[in-house]
């Protein structure tokens, strides 16, 4: 008896320590989750904090006197004249008029406030409206990137302000009089890449991504579903089938950059396909996403209960009819869900595309599958490597757009899984 009691005593005495250990262990778990979620939070706030100003553009609105003599132009419909004409001078003159105290001697400093592409905007406007020559028009132009940076980040130490004190007071004054304004950055969504951050946009990259994704989708979805059907429904139990399965499982874990090497060696060097085009990008991403789609499609086929198959066979359907008429429609939501997740993965992929040359600097929005293009994640990579902080801001904004695409794709997949997938 004494022995037992003393044992109970020992246990009781150790209880406190053991419960403390229990609490500590639980705290470790909570801490781990807090670290992971904290990292997620920091990542998001960092990117949003860096990039939300990328959605804002700075413009300058002024009355431009389109004086033919000043521009060396008397016929705006003449291609040759329009090429030779001076479109910077009217802008400089208009701005000097807007700035009280600025004189002809300050023209260099004044000129540095206007975007280098503003003269192109003016030329195109005049080309479209030749009757404007000799009149005065109120027009809006982008400011120089340095002004843009100053307006948005005046107090921020991370940004180096390139304006001098004179220019700063001018800009402050113009801001107060609403000559310089900030507004939603539509240029960012309607242009291609550019050397000038104010002019740089992601439309080219988005179109490139869409073209690449289209190629990936129309290839990987049918092929993936067909392969899954074969492996689940028709494949005989033999070594060759096992070999196919081993291959698929391994390909799912091969680093994506290896697929880039494959694309470079096979599609570009062996088949002589052009570099940096959406078709080659789509082919490489197809090979990369196929294992994911096959694996999820197989799971979807597996989840269709055997009673469906037996019922169809019982009324005389052939094996192929059972699969195509009954199993496939029932498994389709699951397959679509898996494919959307696979496509989201492909949309965010960068490394293999670097190797097949989709890193080129491309200004134009691509207009076909065989046109040089870049994609959204590569555009982020290109801008992130720039020493100019204004480009970093654009890169963050582009990341936000990319994440918005990815999150909505994943949300769609989750919604579809909840709505369409049947539990048996």
């Amino acid at each position, binding site marked *: 008896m004494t022995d037992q009691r003393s044992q109970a005593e020992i246990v009781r005495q150790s209880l406190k320590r*053991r*419960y403390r*250990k229990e609490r500590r262990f*639980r705290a*470790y*778990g909570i*801490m*781990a*989750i807090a670290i*992971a*979620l904290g990292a*997620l939070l920091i*990542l998001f706030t960092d*990117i949003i904090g860096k990039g939300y100003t990328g959605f804002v553009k700075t413009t300058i609105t002024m009355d431009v006197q389109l004086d033919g003599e000043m521009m060396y132009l008397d016929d705006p419909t003449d291609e040759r004249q329009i090429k030779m004409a001076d479109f910077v001078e009217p802008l400089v003159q208009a701005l000097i008029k807007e700035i009280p105290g600025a004189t002809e001697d300050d023209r260099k400093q004044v000129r540095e406030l206007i975007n280098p592409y503003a003269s192109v905007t003016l030329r195109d406007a005049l080309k479209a409206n030749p009757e404007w020559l000799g009149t005065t028009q109120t027009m809006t132009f982008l400011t120089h990137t340095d002004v843009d940076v100053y307006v948005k980040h005046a107090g921020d130490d991370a940004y180096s302000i390139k304006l001098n004190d004179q220019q700063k007071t001018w800009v402050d004054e113009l801001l107060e009089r609403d000559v310089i304004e900030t507004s939603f950055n539509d240029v960012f969504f309607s242009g291609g890449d550019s050397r000038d951050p104010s002019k740089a946009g992601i439309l080219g990259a988005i179109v490139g991504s869409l073209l690449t994704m289209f190629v990936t989708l129309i290839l990987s979805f*049918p092929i993936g579903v*067909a*392969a899954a059907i*074969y492996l689940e429904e*028709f494949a005989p139990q033999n070594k060759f089938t096992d070999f*196919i399965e081993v*291959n698929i499982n*391994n*390909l799912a*874990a*091969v*680093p994506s*950059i*290896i697929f*880039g*090497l*494959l694309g*470079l*060696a096979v599609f570009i060097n*062996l*088949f002589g396909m052009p570099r940096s085009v959406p078709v080659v990008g789509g082919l490489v991403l197809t090979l990369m996403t*196929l294992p994911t789609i*096959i694996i999820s499609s197989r799971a979807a086929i597996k989840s269709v209960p055997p009673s469906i198959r037996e019922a169809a066979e019982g009324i005389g359907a*052939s*094996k*192929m009819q059972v699969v195509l008429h009954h199993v496939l429609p029932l498994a389709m939501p699951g397959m679509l869900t898996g494919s959307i997740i696979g496509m*989201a993965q492909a*949309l*965010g*992929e*960068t*490394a293999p595309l*670097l*190797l097949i040359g989709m*890193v080129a600097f491309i200004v134009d929005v691509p207009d076909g599958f*065989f046109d040089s293009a870049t994609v959204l*994640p*590569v555009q*982020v*990579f290109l801008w*992130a490597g720039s020493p100019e902080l204004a480009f970093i801001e654009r890169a*963050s904004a582009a*990341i936000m757009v990319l994440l918005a695409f*990815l999150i909505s794709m*994943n949300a769609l997949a*989750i919604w579809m899984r909840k709505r369409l997938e049947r539990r048996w």
Partner: protein
Amino acid sequence: MQPANLLLLTLVLAIVAYWLGYARSRSLAMPLGGIRHLKSLPFYYGARAALWSGIPALIVLGLWAAFQGKVIQMIVIGGLPEGIIPATDGEASLLLSKISNVASGALPPGFVEAPIAEAAERLQALRTQSRFLMSGLVISVAVLAGFLGWLRIRPRLNARSQVESILKWVFFACAALAILTTVGIIFSVAFETFRFFGKVPFTEFIFGSHWSPQTALRADQVASQGAFGMIPLFTGTLLISAIAMVVAVPVGLLSAIYLSEYAGRKVRGVVKPLLEMLAGIPTVVYGFFAALTVAPFISDLAASMGIEASSQSALAAGAVMGIMIIPFVSSLSDDVINAVPQAMRDGSLALGATQSETMKKVIFPAALPGIMGGILLAVSRAIGETMIVVMAAGLAANLTANPLETVTTVTVQIVTLLTGDQEFDSAKTLAAFALGAMLFLATLLLNVIALKIVRKYREQYD
């Protein structure tokens, strides 16, 4: 005609064949007294005609489109006069790009030698011819085969079983594409790797401790004789992966344990999708975060403590990579922990063990092989990860174990060697393929071992 348009035309022809086959089977059935006298439904006769017309045409189209570029190049190069036939592959590719520039109008023909201008004309002519021939061939194959298929429609023909067996073969071909991809990877990488070892000895590559792939541009250049020793890359990769694992394994494992053993349904329902979100973020975003936020933070922090840290430290890249891998480790270990039979848990709790004791002394040892498998998969993921290290780790191949210094990795070097201008047969470019081969082998090995462990473990408790 462009291949894309031709593809569309082939599909249209297949649809036409479908309707013709469908109509013929119905008209054949009419005098017999309705379609119940046909062996198969009219749909299958139509589908059979469409497959007859479409499949051979698509095969011809695919093969032609894949190989026409190469064949035309060979003809153009072969047709050059004696004096300027290129001696090496590098010269050949230079010459070809010159010729195609002239042909596309980017370079005026007056700027180049006469034979090259002629070659450009020939290239242009061959391209037109090839396009013409391809269109003609594909269309005639589609029409002819479709017509043959159409002719052979008989009421006694078992169209359904024919269509089904063709479809089955198509499905098989899709599944076998996985094998083809693997073979493609192995061949493309192996071929260039062997060429590389023809230029740089295998032992130097494996055991050399100096990496600087800048080879001489001209033969008489003194400065750089490239060095291709992969040890610094190898250790750099290992260092960064090790840092990533130090972050990912404890955090991933502990959060998996907490979520599966302690957390209520509601908490799990919120936290799990959030953790999975970490896995869904593109690697380029992590790279951006590592290069522009974490790396400066670490070097500032180190500077404030009086330690010198590089602005492209291994620590920044490794830590961010670890964050990326957390959900990978946590979901794999979650599966494994949940696979441990409930009876073991109940037994341990019934003996009076606390939950943490049960976890540490019963479930964890039982799940250990599976967790090890998961960790190996995570390591292979870390080794092959590219964007984070390309953006946040440096290019300097240092042989160091100090996480605050700059190191470079295998994937960084592959990307650096293969982006930008390249000559295809220089040791520099080929080295990228050799590195790719090493990377492929290493990850393959890790995956095979890991999958074997995980499978064995699963069988144990099934």
